[in-house]
């Protein structure tokens, strides 16, 4: 019997060895893979315990904060609801968006330190502390712009044309990131016909109307097709203009009321911008030709992915199949669809001597130990036209505010350049009201774009709003 007992013992030892092998497989060999499974509830728990980095404005004002409850769960609070379309939300239920999403790796501290530091932290069961993200936004200005814009669907961006830093970015209607985790609130946002979840400044698509003329003018000057003093007369100036059988109606009424003045053709190209004369710009577009027109549109950023701290929709030129479409596109109609950011970039190109600075929302990212992890890269994004061409457009835009369609934007004592836009839409409502501007003309510090969806005439609706925004911005510009 003793031999059998020994053999039984040997058998048990063997099987225990196999058991240990099984445990080694799960605890060592496959350990990393199995604990990374999405149904590991510890991962959600750890995610909830990360001391998520704060988001600050350029002056250090806290915009998104973290609070830790008794269970060690971290909660996000946002101080300025007008920034929800910029900062986005961090909802355990509905995920993340905008900066909360694009800077998640920094905010959750996944980038910090070497691997062994993370490992030691894990052994010590220390919660991960994320990096703080400082924005280029000035929250004082942000709140003023939010109160200036009407509560109808609209958008505005204020930027520094020298650096591309965004100082304020408002989208209306907006939402409160603090409440996004509430399913009822979320559902209401999803079903709201005014689409409050769309960040209009970067993802709203609009027909540009006459603000696009600064691009057409820039193209004409840069390619030496025309100069500011090139004269247009007759049907080339006031129409009616017949292009391949299509008749663009007379604009003589516009010329009869150009900022209170009566302009009689022949008119110069500068006067055409000042009075926003569609027919002249159709003529300029026809002179440029389709390929050159498209080329300049691309140079200004249309049809191009725009690198930015939050996702930006690509502005579209649409197809320009014939001269009829080319003529329409030249004064901003046709099948053009642009974001407010796109028009701000065109505005900045004029202000900045022909180059568009890289737009930036994030100034820097700081680790918990105070070291700077990432900094705004700066630099030039596109250089669509020459400095000389930009100077030409700038002088014409200055005249727009001084004596043309943009007079309602005038600020006493400040020389400003601007352009109105009144974009006809196919849905039959009032046109979209646009205004782009920058100031001071000689050394621009602030660039502004304002859009009011179906707001009416740019000159009467958007220009006065842009004036108030510009005044607020100049008051704190450095």
């Amino acid at each position, binding site marked *: 019997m003793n031999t059998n007992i020994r053999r039984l*013992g040997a058998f048990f030892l063997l099987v225990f060895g196999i058991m240990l092998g*099984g*445990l080694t497989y799960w*605890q060592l060999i496959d*350990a990393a*893979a199995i*604990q990374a499974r999405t*149904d590991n509830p510890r991962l959600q728990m750890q995610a909830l315990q990360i001391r998520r980095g704060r988001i600050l404005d350029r002056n250090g004002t806290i915009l998104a904060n973290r609070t830790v409850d008794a269970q060690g769960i971290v909660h996000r609070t946002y101080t300025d609801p007008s920034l929800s379309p910029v900062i986005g939300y961090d909802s355990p239920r509905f995920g993340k968006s905008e900066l909360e999403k694009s800077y998640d790796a920094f905010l959750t501290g996944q980038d910090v330190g070497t691997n062994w530091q993370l490992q030691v932290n894990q052994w010590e*069961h220390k919660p991960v502390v994320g990096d703080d993200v400082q924005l280029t936004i000035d929250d004082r200005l942000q709140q003023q712009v939010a109160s200036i814009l009407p509560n109808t669907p609209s958008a505005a961006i204020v930027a520094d044309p020298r650096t591309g830093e965004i100082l304020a970015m408002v989208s209306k209607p907006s939402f409160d990131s603090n409440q996004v985790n509430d399913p009822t609130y979320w559902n209401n946002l999803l079903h709201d016909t005014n689409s409050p979840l769309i960040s209009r400044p970067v993802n709203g698509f609009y027909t540009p109307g006459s603000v696009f003329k600064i691009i057409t003018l820039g193209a004409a000057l840069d390619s030496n097709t025309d100069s500011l003093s090139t004269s247009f007369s007759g049907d080339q100036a006031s129409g009616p203009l017949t292009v391949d059988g299509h008749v663009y109606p007379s604009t003589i009424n516009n010329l009869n009321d150009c900022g209170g003045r009566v302009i009689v053709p022949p008119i110069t190209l500068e006067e055409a911008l000042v009075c926003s004369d569609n027919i002249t710009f159709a003529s300029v577009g026809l002179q440029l030709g389709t390929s050159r027109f498209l080329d300049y549109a691309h140079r200004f950023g249309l049809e191009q992915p725009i690198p930015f701290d939050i996702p930006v929709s690509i502005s579209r030129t649409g197809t320009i199949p014939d001269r009829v479409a080319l003529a329409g596109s030249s004064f901003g109609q046709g099948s053009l669809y642009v974001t407010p950011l796109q028009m701000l970039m065109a505005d900045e190109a004029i202000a900045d001597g022909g180059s568009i600075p890289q737009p930036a929302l994030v100034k820097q990212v700081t680790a918990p130990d105070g070291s700077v992890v990432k900094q705004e890269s700066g630099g030039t994004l596109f250089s669509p036209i020459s400095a000389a061409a930009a100077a030409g457009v700038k002088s014409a835009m200055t005249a727009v505010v001084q004596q043309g369609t943009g007079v309602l934007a005038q600020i006493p004592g400040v020389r400003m350049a601007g352009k109105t836009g009144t974009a006809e839409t196919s849905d039959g409502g009032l046109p979209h009201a646009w205004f782009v501007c920058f100031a001071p003309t000689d050394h621009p510090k602030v660039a502004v774009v304002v859009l009011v969806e179906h707001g009416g005439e740019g000159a009467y609706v958007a220009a006065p709003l842009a004036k108030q925004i510009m005044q607020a911005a100049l008051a704190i510009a450095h």
Partner: protein
Amino acid sequence: MRGYRLRWTELALLTFGGAIVTGGFSLLSMAQHRHLLQSDLRYPGIYVASTILLSLWMSKFATRADQLVFPVIALMAGVGILVITRLDVALGHRQLFWTVLGEVALALVLVFPRRVSTLRLYKYSWAFLGLLLIAATIVAGTDVSGSGYKRWIGFHGVYLQPVELLKILMAIFFAAYLDEKRELLASARIQIGPIRVPPFQYLAPLVVMWGLSLLLLVKQNDLGSALLFLGIFLAMIYVGTARAIYPVSGLLMFVAGVFLAFHLFSHVRTRTELWLDPWSRASGTGYQVIQGLIALGVGGVGGQGLGQGHPNFVPVVTTDFILSALGEELGLAGVACLLGLLIFLVFRGLSVAISAQDGFEKLLAAGLMATLAIQTIVIVGGTTRLMPLTGVPLPFLSYGGSSVLANFVMIGLLLKISSGITERRD
């Protein structure tokens, strides 16, 4: 009965083990309260005192019993109380209560009956008593765990699982019967054509008893215990007869039986499918197994540390899945130590079996160790997916009053056998 002699080796090892368990409770207290709460040390205090007292008892009533066996199970029981306290404080306190009760039972077994071999006289009575208890449970039992089957018997909050007692009674019955008939079973042969077949008819009483217990367990859907009983049955026949044909034919019949059951019973089929592929059922029937494996993976080699992981995410973690909790907080290193303690205990028990002169005691000691070893294999193998999962407690570590009591009684019998060995000493 000889005089009083202190068992110094045992006392020294118990002190060492007691220090480990007390240290564990201190770590747990600090992990949970950020400082050491003195009241948290009451429970390891009670535990250490009880083990020392039992050793003193043995210095009177089991003077020459093996001195390594009790410290090993005491350490495992202490770690069990510790981890269960970490998972559920109230349950931990109950486990401590059951452990002390188990030690009392062990102490009583050492003095009554006076000789282990007395047990062989009533072998059929023991077996029938066991079966009767199970039958009574099926009729008048309670479904404590909500499994849909009555596996407990008792009242007023104290419930026992008769299957744990049946384990011991069947081991006694098998040992007694095999000791009586083993010459016959080992030597006699029946010639059928060219094949010499062992005399299976002498196995009839064994097969009947085993079959009856199996039937009752299947009625309770307690596949783990059924598997355990088969293992004990085959291991003991092998030890008793030295003929591999018994366990081999038994295993073949088992495989055939499983094949049949796979096609006849849906819950056997479900369990097999779950074993082969839990991943596609991760949020349903596979949830428990996969969460258990995730906990093991999270523990890794070094473990998260006592009170620092989240083993409570695993369902039934205090009983069937205690290994996952141990694996998450103590790591592969800790679990390997515990498995080492278990196999050490089995070897120590088997060496007692080898030293014992009486055939019944030999078989009983081997059978009791086989019970512990197979039970460990069934639950560790099930948790790590080396075999289909069938729930049995991990000896000395899982929560369960009946299991603790039965295991201490088994060790009591082993120590009693060890104490009776006069000549050979290590």
